[in-house]
């Protein structure tokens, strides 16, 4: 079957504006979901699940969060790591304070707290723009990190200063804590991330998303067109921080199992920013691709020499890894500044006319 939309007539406005207007895309997304639900769990062992798939999905959510703010609303933020931390600490406190409520409820609620913090730190965005704003979001990053270290209340005064995933079950299956099966955790994370992506997709394709894009393209013009900048920008901060917060909570409960304040440092913020830029600003697909690329690449580089039989000391691998990732980021920016999502769009266009491109 060729990749064509010929013969697919649309008779309603809704069908015309659908997220996947072409039938092949709709089939494709279902096939991908089927692969994620059926094939991947069958072929992956625990290592692949815990060190590639689960973190990859969690980072996807964080990248979508940042993409809302930076890609759709045009406000550069370097504080994602801290907002993820707020979500993680909020989920930890809530889960410990109300153990009878299902953990998933608290994971989804934890984002509300990071959204609130995000709105507070988003307030300066009304006056401060561009790179200046990027630097002020660093204030959020460092202030919140300091709070995680200094406020013992956040960790229930644990001596190590770290938070740990509590043991919780869902329908009798253990989903969090030391004895949770990686496969179960994978399904929970997959479900949450797909669900939130779907919600976000509806958000950015609707009125709110268009408002954000107006603000991004030129906020003064948007204001003249009747967009109220204060709600628009703050909503972007809130939604973005919400997603980041949920991602942070999932990071502790379903992936790491325990986290220290340093886990939510500036490195994490940059990593998520890399994913967004490499994936493509202003594209949800880009967030998925970028997260997969940036997360999987170091793992691949780490194990590639071993596979072809070359023995390299691990410290050397770390250094080469850092160099290659850095060089690849520059390379990608040069080749395709609009990210992997644009690459996919170009491929799609080529596929449409294949095999007779003239």
């Amino acid at each position, binding site marked *: 079957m060729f990749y064509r939309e010929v013969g697919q007539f649309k008779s309603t406005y809704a069908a015309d504006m659908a997220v996947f207007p072409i039938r092949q895309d709709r089939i494709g997304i279902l096939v991908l979901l089927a692969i994620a639900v059926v094939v991947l769990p069958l072929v992956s062992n625990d290592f692949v699940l815990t060190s590639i798939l689960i973190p990859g999905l969690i980072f996807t959510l964080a990248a979508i969060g940042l993409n809302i703010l*930076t890609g759709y609303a045009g406000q550069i933020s370097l504080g994602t790591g801290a907002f993820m931390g707020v979500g993680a600490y909020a989920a930890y406190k809530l889960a410990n304070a109300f153990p009878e409520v299902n953990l998933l409820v608290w994971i989804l609620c934890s984002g509300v707290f990071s959204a609130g913090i995000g709105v507070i730190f988003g307030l300066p965005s009304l006056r401060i723009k561009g*790179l200046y704003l990027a630097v002020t979001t660093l*204030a959020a990053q460092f202030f919140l990190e300091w709070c995680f270290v*200094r406020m013992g209340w956040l960790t229930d005064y644990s001596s190590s200063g770290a938070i740990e995933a509590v043991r919780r079950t869902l329908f009798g299956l253990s989903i969090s804590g030391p004895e949770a099966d990686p496969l179960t955790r994978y399904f929970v994370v997959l479900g949450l991330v797909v669900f939130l992506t779907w919600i976000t997709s509806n958000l950015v394709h609707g009125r709110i998303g268009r408002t954000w894009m107006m603000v991004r393209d030129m906020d003064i013009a948007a204001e003249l067109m009747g967009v109220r900048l204060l709600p628009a920008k703050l909503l972007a901060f809130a939604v973005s921080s919400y997603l980041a917060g949920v991602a942070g909570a999932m990071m502790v409960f379903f992936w790491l199992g325990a986290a220290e304040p340093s886990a939510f440092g500036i490195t994490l913020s940059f990593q998520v920013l890399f994913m967004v830029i490499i994936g493509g600003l202003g594209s949800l697909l880009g967030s998925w691709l970028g997260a997969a690329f940036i997360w999987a690449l170091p793992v691949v580089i780490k194990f590639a020499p071993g596979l072809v039989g070359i023995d390299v000391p691990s410290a*050397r691998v770390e250094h080469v890894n850092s*160099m290659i990732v850095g060089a690849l980021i520059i390379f990608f920016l*040069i080749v395709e500044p609009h990210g992997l999502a644009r690459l996919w769009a170009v491929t799609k266009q080529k596929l449409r006319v294949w095999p007779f491109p003239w």
Partner: protein
Amino acid sequence: MDLLASIFLDPFVRMGTNPTFLVQVVWEGFVSGVLYALVALGFVLIYKASGVFNFAQGIMVVFAALTLVGLAEMGMPGWLALAAAVVAMLILAFGIEKLVLRPLVNQPDIILLMATIGLTRFLVGLGEMVFGGEPKVMITGALGIPTDVLRVPLFGKTLILKEIDITAAVVALAMVAFLAVFFARTKIGRALRAVADDHQAALSVGISLEKIWVIVWFAAGVVALVTGIMWGARSQVSFDLEIIALKALPVLILGGFTSVPGAIVGGLMIGIGEKVGEIYWGRLLGGGIESWLAYLIALGFLLFRPQGLFGEKIIERV
């Protein structure tokens, strides 16, 4: 009431009763402020000439210092290692211009910012691979930097000044003066200012953008080397120094991205402000507020002047 007193009264009482200590604190802040200003200066040079927000300035500081110390450890005499480090910075400037900047001309700010973050990752890997990741000791002796301690009597107590700090301040000020004269009086300086003003107009009167960019990155590299030497001599040469790049950011936004005097004034304000804040008010919050106080100071100023203290006024048109 107690809280108010501990915020508005006690710190000033402590300042008044022990003025020597206050001078000591301000001096410490001044020296770190000077070094922040040097890092910020590197940013400003590059931002003015090429519009690139160079996040890699911090790692350039580390890289330059590492090259210097690493070469000296391999047995080079101090002055030769210094010359070699300068050459390394020149090569780096050429490489960045050819491989990173030129292909990315006309891209939006954030793409260029990301490219320099990528560059940071690359340089971290390269530096660790060539010179190893352990902290190294700066070769103060071979470079003739004094490391003694001066004790100055003041208000009946002694003020402790490290000679290395005095050297750092003097060298930094000399560097700034030199750059100011260089910008104002030489042909290259004029060309730099022209490029900063308007790339296309500069091109049309025959200024080579490529040459200017190499020069600017080289100048930033030399500033980084000086910063690295001074900072390395005060503590150690290691990748922890990279963090000072993050400290230089509030300095930048306070002073404005495009202003050399702004970088200096901003650096001193942040340096002194965060030291005084930490010593006199920090204990109220449990200490360690140095990590974010600078950002808060900068944020406060920005709310009133969104372009920084000395930045060019931002004019927006639809």
